[in-house]
């Protein structure tokens, strides 16, 4: 493997400038993206870039760990939680706390400037690279340190991890506190509340579409909200087919007229319900 030089090579420089920009963009994406999912993905990107930088800095072990643990485990954990929680959690970026955003921006800027100033006038001219440190192999070097100098911290970290695992379990595992309500009670409650006593209507229209993401149509041809999963609606992943179906209906009638050879005295107008369909149907349709 490459014995790392004190000063970085031009190749590294190119790599730095390219990936550095990617990292920054990823970071910005993390904080600017509207949906949590996108934030998570852009963060993952940044982390991968950082992993590359670790490798470039001679921290081979860390680079790998970064990819495996962070991008592999932690970010996936994030994504899971987002799936679990965050479908509706596309929070609008408009600020609620007065002046919070300006304060944040100002402070962030000032802080960054301070840090950079600090680094700037730190005397970091000469690099005595990791050549001899990594002589016996990076992993071996780290292991030597961990199991000698930092062994106590290491043990403590182990304890910490155990505790964290147990803690997570305790937090998320819900104990059933009250007796489960029997079916009878549930039905009685439903009747009492007077909402949707029978089971929810099935999706799909006239059994021609049998996908879950297609709302069933009411007799007048308008789609019914009840027939589709609210999560899908929240994600806006609903296909609305009411218009086509109405058109088909009309075509059918015309054909039947022609077939019956009757003069077109009165033609039933297409009901305007298609225009009156809820908003998310439209954008759902756009997707």
């Amino acid at each position, binding site marked *: 493997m490459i014995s790392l030089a004190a000063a970085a090579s031009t190749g590294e420089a190119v790599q730095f400038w390219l990936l550095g920009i990617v990292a920054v963009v990823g970071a910005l994406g993390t904080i600017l993206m509207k949906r949590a999912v996108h934030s998570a993905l852009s963060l993952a990107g940044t982390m991968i870039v950082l992993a590359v930088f670790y490798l470039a800095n001679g921290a081979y072990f860390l680079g790998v760990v970064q990819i495996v643990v962070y991008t592999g485990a932690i970010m996936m954990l994030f994504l899971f939680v987002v799936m679990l929680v965050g479908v509706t959690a596309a929070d609008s970026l408009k600020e609620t*706390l007065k002046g919070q955003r300006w*304060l944040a921006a100002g*402070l*962030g800027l000032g*802080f960054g400037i*301070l840090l950079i100033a*600090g680094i700037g006038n730190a005397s970091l001219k000469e690099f005595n690279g990791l050549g001899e440190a990594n002589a016996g192999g990076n992993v071996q070097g780290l292991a030597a340190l961990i199991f000698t100098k930092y062994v106590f911290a290491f043990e403590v970290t182990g304890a910490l991890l155990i505790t964290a695992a147990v803690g997570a379990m305790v937090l998320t595992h819900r104990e059933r506190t009250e007796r489960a309500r029997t079916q009878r009670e549930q039905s009685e409650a439903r009747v009492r509340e007077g909402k949707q006593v029978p089971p929810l209507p099935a999706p799909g229209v006239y059994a021609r579409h049998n996908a879950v993401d297609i709302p069933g149509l009411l007799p007048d041809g308008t789609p019914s909200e009840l027939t589709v999963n609210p999560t899908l609606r929240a994600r806006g992943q609903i296909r609305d087919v009411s218009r086509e179906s109405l058109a088909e209906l009309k075509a059918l009638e015309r054909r039947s007229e022609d077939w019956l050879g009757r003069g077109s005295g009165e033609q039933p107008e297409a009901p305007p319900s298609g225009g009156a369909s809820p908003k998310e149907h439209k954008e759902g349709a756009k997707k």
Partner: protein
Amino acid sequence: MENLIALLVAAPLVGAALLLCGGKRLDRTGHWLGTLFAAASFAVGVALFADMLGRSADHRALHQHLFTWIPVGGFRADVAFQLDQLSMTFVLLITGVGSLIHVYSIGYMEHDERRRRFFGYLNLFLAAMLLLVLADNYLLLYVGWEGVGLASYLLIGFWQHKPSAATAAKKAFLVNRVGDMGLSIAIMLMFTTFGTFAFGPVLASTGATSEGKLTAIGLMLLLAACGKSAQVPLQSWLGDAMEGPTPVSALIHAATMVTAGVYLITRSGAIFNAAPDAQTAVVAVGAVTLLFGAIVGCAKDDIKKALAGSTMSQIGYMILAAGLGPIGYAFAIMHLVTHGFFKAGLFLGAGSVMHGMNDEVDMRRYGGLRKYMPVTFVTFGLGYLAIIGFPGLSGFFSKDKIIEAAFAKGGTEGWILGGAALLGAAITAFYMTRVMLMTFFGEERWRKAPTPSPDQPSVEPAAETRGEYAPPHPHESPKVMTLPMIVLAIGSVFAGGLFSLNEAFVKWLEPVTSFAHGHPPVSATTVTAATIAVLLLGVGVAWLMYGRRPVPSLAPRGSLLTRAARRDLLQDDFNDIVFVRGGGHLTTTLVQLDHTLVDGAVNGTAASMGGLSGLLRQLQSGFVRSYAVQMLGGAAVLVAATLLMRGV
């Protein structure tokens, strides 16, 4: 023998304790008990007097040291008595007149349910007064000094249910306190100057210190004397003090207590001799007061207030004499004694008149009383003759000597003082004649109902508020009251003559108060002649004004001076405006300041603390992200600080 001295003070003191703590069971016998103790004290005094006469002039002073009172560092006060000729004179006067007045009071206070307490107070007064004149150091004298003040406070305000009486008592005590301030400062000065304040060392070593210090001491003593002896400018309390029962006025505010100032100055003669400026102040005060009192006496229609004015003026004579130094001391004391006799007599007479006239004090409601109360008339008349200095009576001898001494002061000062004294004699003759005429001669004005009068507060308002008017039935007082009057009358006739038989009195006092013959610019006979002349003049004018034509039962508006004099020459108005009102405003404003400023400052800090914390509380919005902002701010500050530390 000297062990008896303490007895002088102890007897009345025990009496006072018995009567005041004795409770109801002593109500019936209380007055006799009180009189007994006073008489006992008098007896002891006489015994000591006899013993003293038995010894040669220079060894007459007795001394008794009871115990050390306050020993702190160099400061040492003893409870010790000193009985020399001067003290002896006072002891006899006080106990003698005191006993007589006790007897008189038995009759006068007969119908008062608090008579026992009255006698208790009288005994207390005697004890304090004797302590005053027997003390051998200024601090013990101060105790007696305040003690008589307390007794006079209690006795003036004896009829406490009358607000006027209570107010008068308070006023007397307060004005006296001002004087006491002078005395205490004088004592402090003595302590810092001589390291002691016992008569012996202080008076013996006046030469050892600067005249300035002595002048200061003298002036302070003078202030004290002014307070106690009702001299200008502290004289205002004496008139109101007449609210007290008449025996009190006779004993305390005529014969004994008010003369304490004269005693103080005479006793401190050594100091004044060494401080001429102080002496000048003394004679000035004396001269002014003797005129002041006389003028006030002319205008008053209240018989007791008129007599009070005369007391003031007579004491003015004494102070004047005492201020003249060795040529005057003896005569001051002599006049003091004779005055004690006749003024006490006059007051008792006035009391007896009031006793017969349902406590009417307005002389304009008297008139022609001589038929109804002959004994009172005679005794009062003798007292009257004595005080105006009718040749042959005691007042003549003492006052004449004082006038001589005043002239003998020498220089223009002498002329001024002598002139003042003469003028005073004339006015004295005038107002005393006025009192005499208005009371015992003329028509009987008390027969018809009084008409309400706007500017005469001294008229008893009760009379006209009641619709029907029952004229009083003037009658002679019982024996127990007339007897003391007779005795005093005798005293006021012969005392003066007795004293001046080949200057017996002067010789008697000479070892204590050094004596020097004064040499008036004009011969003594001329002075005497002048005195008699002005005396006749005064009497004549008074007769023209009040004897010839009838006295209006309602006071005429009178001249400006008269009206001023009725109001004590505006002294009270001055006091009222300056001290009472001004003081009132001062205190109220101070209360405001205390509340707003001093207290407000504290409360203000507390309030501002509250406001500040309220402001900080706003930061705790409870929103995690605002806390995060604050954290980041803190971090930024830390980084900046570190960078600055490293000197960026």
